[in-house]
């Protein structure tokens, strides 16, 4: 126990810490400028000086470690004088342009000068002049305001791990610059901007558009982009979003955000938002009224249900919508439409993987915490790049690596290039075999567990074949691990034999007693599953085919639930194609664009008798719909999201949306018109019902969610569901012999339909890029920036080539985020017979330089 005295107050400390921290614990504030709680200690500004008895000189409170018996004074005549002196020196160069600077009102230098500073400076030197740099699309750098505290640099290097900026120059010419001295070319997380104490780094999104004290209200809510579920504060003025910021101490992201979360909010205010319901009349979508559109939808759905049966209707739910929306959606499909044909794009990764893994290892097996990843000593990343798909989770991996964890990557994870211990690249689409051979080696080295017969049996039946890659080093890393986290991305699931890779992952998890995280590129994939937006599962993960579960819900819901499992996502599309599905109800999803072989999907959707779409934009799917309802967007509604750790978090309404309606409410109105009663008057009412019927969300209330973190299963009872027999082993792997294959890219800056309507994200990354390794580019005589025609058997289009040093040969990467040029339109699929996820593999591709591309080549 260390006892120190600060300003006459005795303070007991359990562990060694800086005097600054100790004072903070005792509620004593010491002024700081270079120090920031989220960053490593620097000791550069000396504003935190304190007097320590028996030490002749003033000491930095931030770097001085408290020792037993220290007697410290934090405010005195001398200390104030020194602080005033330091500030006077800073003000030699710092321009006094507060009236014009966005930071005024929340500037730490301004506050310090207000408290300690000189009112007049004695120095007469001419201030240094560094012109403001407006060369970046997002950040404005005003380097004459920089006080060289290095907070931004420490943030970028040590927390974000991007190392994109540094202090350049020397003496009073020092200032922060990105390498190019102009544009940042970085991860655009904006975390440097958050920690800058002065107005040296500003955001162009709201430059000179408001003062911090002119904010009407601040609303705490959750980011709408990915499954991490970062807490954000939305600042509103005149009912429009001024900015979205994180807050240190708030949420699991604790002050950090990624580019999408911080700069991707503008879509909410987009001019292109749908404003009124539309109905197709004479082949054209025409403006309509809410009551007409609701009546029309209910009437048509009832007709189709009556003449073709409930199973002629299907629904696609949305991992962008809240738990409440999704709960009402599946209830509407099951009870009003009479079908279990309910699925979502989550089928293409998260939901399929989770279902299979939970069937093997029990419900909740994928609920590893982000802090668990941070504290792991060994991390295996496979099938996706956490720093791009779930950036804040990616930071946890980087932090673990910095703290000495071994990070093994199978496949590509660009954002971990500098952090990985080992990278193993299997031959194209042969991940399953690599993982299987890894599993058999690991199982051989470990004692058998004999706890889950299906897994034990599966392991014993492994063929021991290999993908032709040495797994020795991988095995060693995994066997050396004491606390192992496995992070799994959707690439692995999108294989015709995806379940085999999933089995291998399950086996590794089981043998190594590892923890599992599934990457999730939508904010509420977990919630959607928990709410039962699946063809085979009721809320709470209860199988729909089990009579007792159905019975319970039928009593609660007052009606009959169809007994048979419904169709999965791509089976629904195939159903539309062959005429078995007549009506499709789509909530917040864009299947005409987001599914593999999307042009065929689009044709299938066009052939439907009825296509109903609820969305915030006129998406590719809404364009071909018969009825379109404008729904409320993320910042316009209340509800809950369940993140990839299964943390249930509250979404709060920040701005009003006069002409739109919440998704659950639209469904409720249609349902009532179809004769199935719903009585909710708020999202909270829906949650009350969920808390009654869902065994996983028992007794959950909004009050409790907002009071703290609610981790799944909330008072609930997860199932120990188990597969007792593995499906017969799949056929031999295909031999892929083409020269070049197309694969799906998941970039950091975009997510699709929302990000492409966000001007800031479009400025950071304006167009799709076809990424290729340097070796293969050279082989094809192509260079960075070339305009190329990319084509497969499904079609083709022009796109800019980007040569990426960390990629190998044989594959090119393209995203599915931009209008008319989504990679999925070029790719076919084969369903994995077990998970029903589309196997999107083996897509041979040709790329050819466009003749006129020299103009595009020097744009880097």
């Amino acid at each position: 126990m260390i006892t120190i005295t600060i300003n006459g107050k005795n303070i007991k400390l359990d562990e060694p810490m800086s005097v600054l921290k100790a004072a903070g614990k005792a509620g004593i504030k010491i002024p700081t400028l270079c120090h920031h709680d989220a960053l490593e200690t620097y000791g550069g500004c000396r504003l935190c000086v304190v007097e320590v008895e028996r030490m002749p000189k003033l000491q930095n409170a931030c770097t001085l470690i408290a020792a037993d018996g220290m007697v410290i004074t934090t405010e005195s005549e001398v200390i104030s004088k020194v602080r005033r002196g330091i500030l006077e020196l800073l003000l030699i160069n710092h321009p006094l342009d507060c009236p014009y600077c966005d930071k005024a009102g929340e500037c730490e230098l301004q506050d310090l000068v207000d408290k300690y500073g000189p009112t007049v400076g004695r120095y007469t030197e001419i201030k240094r002049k560094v012109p403001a740099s407006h060369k970046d699309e997002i950040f404005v750098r005003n380097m004459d305001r920089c006080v060289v505290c290095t907070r931004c640099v420490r943030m970028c290097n040590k927390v974000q791990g991007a190392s994109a900026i540094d202090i350049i120059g020397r003496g009073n010419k020092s200032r922060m610059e990105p390498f190019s001295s102009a544009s940042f070319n970085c991860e655009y997380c904006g975390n440097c901007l958050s920690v800058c104490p002065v107005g040296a780094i500003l955001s162009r999104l709201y430059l000179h558009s408001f003062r911090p004290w002119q904010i009407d209200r601040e609303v705490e809510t959750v980011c709408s982009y990915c499954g991490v579920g970062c807490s954000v504060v939305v600042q509103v003025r005149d009912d429009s979003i001024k900015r979205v910021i994180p807050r240190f101490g708030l949420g699991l992201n604790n002050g950090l955000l990624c580019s999408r979360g911080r700069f991707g909010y503008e879509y909410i205010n987009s001019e292109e938002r749908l404003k009124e319901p539309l109905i197709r009349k004479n082949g054209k979508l025409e403006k309509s009224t809410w009551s007409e559109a609701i009546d029309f939808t209910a009437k048509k759905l009832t007709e189709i249900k009556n003449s073709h049966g409930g199973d002629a209707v299907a629904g696609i739910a949305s991992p962008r919508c809240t738990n409440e929306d999704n709960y009402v959606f599946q209830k509407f499909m099951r009870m009003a439409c009479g079908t279990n044909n309910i699925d979502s794009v989550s089928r293409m990764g998260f939901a399929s993987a989770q279902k299979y893994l939970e069937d093997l290892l029990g419900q909740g097996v994928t609920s590893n915490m982000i802090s668990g990843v941070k504290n792991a000593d060994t991390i295996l990343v496979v099938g996706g790049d956490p720093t791009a798909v779930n950036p804040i989770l990616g930071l946890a991996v980087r932090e673990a690596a910095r703290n000495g964890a071994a990070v093994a990557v199978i496949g590509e994870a660009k954002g971990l290039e500098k952090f990985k211990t080992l990278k193993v690249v299997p031959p194209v689409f042969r991940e399953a075999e690599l993982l299987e051979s890894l599993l058999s080696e690991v199982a051989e080295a470990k004692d058998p567990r004999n706890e889950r017969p299906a897994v034990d049996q599966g392991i014993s039946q492994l063929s021991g074949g290999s993908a032709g890659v040495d797994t020795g080093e991988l095995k060693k890393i995994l066997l050396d691990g004491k606390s192992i986290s496995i992070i799994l991305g959707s690439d692995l699931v999108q294989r015709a034999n995806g379940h085999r890779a999933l089995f291998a992952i399950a086996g590794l998890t089981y043998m190594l007693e590892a923890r599992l995280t599934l990457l999730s590129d939508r904010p509420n994939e977990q919630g959607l599953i928990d709410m039962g937006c699946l063809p085979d599962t009721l809320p709470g993960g209860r199988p729909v085919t089990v009579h007792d579960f159905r019975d319970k819900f039928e009593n609660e819901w007052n009606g009959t639930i169809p007994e048979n499992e419904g169709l999965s996502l791509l089976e629904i599309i195939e159903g539309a194609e062959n005429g078995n599905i007549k009506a499709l109800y789509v909530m917040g999803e864009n299947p005409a664009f987001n599914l593999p072989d999307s042009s065929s999907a689009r044709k299938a959707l066009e052939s439907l008798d009825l296509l109903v779409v609820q969305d915030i934009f006129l998406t590719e799917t809404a364009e071909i719909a018969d009825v379109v309802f404008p729904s409320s967007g993320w910042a316009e509604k209340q509800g809950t999201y369940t993140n990839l750790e299964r943390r249930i978090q509250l979404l709060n309404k920040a701005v009003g949306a006069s002409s739109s309606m919440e998704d659950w409410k639209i469904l409720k109105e249609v349902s009532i018109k179809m004769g199935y009663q719903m009585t909710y008057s708020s999202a909270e009412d829906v949650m009350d019902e969920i808390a009654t019927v869902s065994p996983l969300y028992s007794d959950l209330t909004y009050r409790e969610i907002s009071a703290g973190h609610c981790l799944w299963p909330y008072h609930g009872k997860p199932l120990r569901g188990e597969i007792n027999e593995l499906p017969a082993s799949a056929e031999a792997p295909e031999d892929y012999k083409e020269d070049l294959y197309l694969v799906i890219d998941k970039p950091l800056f975009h997510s699709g339909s929302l990000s492409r309507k966000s001007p800031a994200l479009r400025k950071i990354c304006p167009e799709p890029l076809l990424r290729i390794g340097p070796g293969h580019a050279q082989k094809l005589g192509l260079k960075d920036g070339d305009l190329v025609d990319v084509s497969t058997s499904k079609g083709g289009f022009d796109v800019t080539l980007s040569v990426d040093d960390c990629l190998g040969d044989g594959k090119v990467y393209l995203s599915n985020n931009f209008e008319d040029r989504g990679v999925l339109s070029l790719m076919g699929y084969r369903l994995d017979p077990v998970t029903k996820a589309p196997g999107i593999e083996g897509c041979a591709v040709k790329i050819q330089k466009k003749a006129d591309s020299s103009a595009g080549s020097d744009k880097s």
Partner: protein
Amino acid sequence: MFNETVLKEIDGIRAKYPDARSALLPSLYVAQREFGWLSPEAMTCVAKTLNLPEAMVRGTASFYAMFRHNPVGRNVIQLCTNVSCMILGSDRLLDLLKSRFDLEPGETTKDGRFSLVIMECIGACGTAPAMLVNTDFHDNLTEQNLEEIMGKYK
């Protein structure tokens, strides 16, 4: 990118230190020798070779006066104008460089033959005025021998 020999040289430097950052300054010298100055490309090469962030390479390079951030002529003159040299006539040498070679401090002759850098003290106060041309040391300079010395550098 660097050629094989240079890459090997930098690898050799790298091998001397446990941390790549320690190899940065000597490697920047190599890059400056190869490229003549530290262009962004030169710094990128160093960053790639040492596997260090580009921004950090530039931050470090920009701190030190001996690294050049603009293209220079084939020969770089570093003339001292500190107290001893000044008293013993470095101003006159500067005038001569201006009138005879059209060379001003911080600039390069049109034919790319010389660049001139003013520097502070090369420790030759006893034999001032003094200068360095590339890495060669010359002292006891006068207007006469300055022209002569310069004639040796093409």
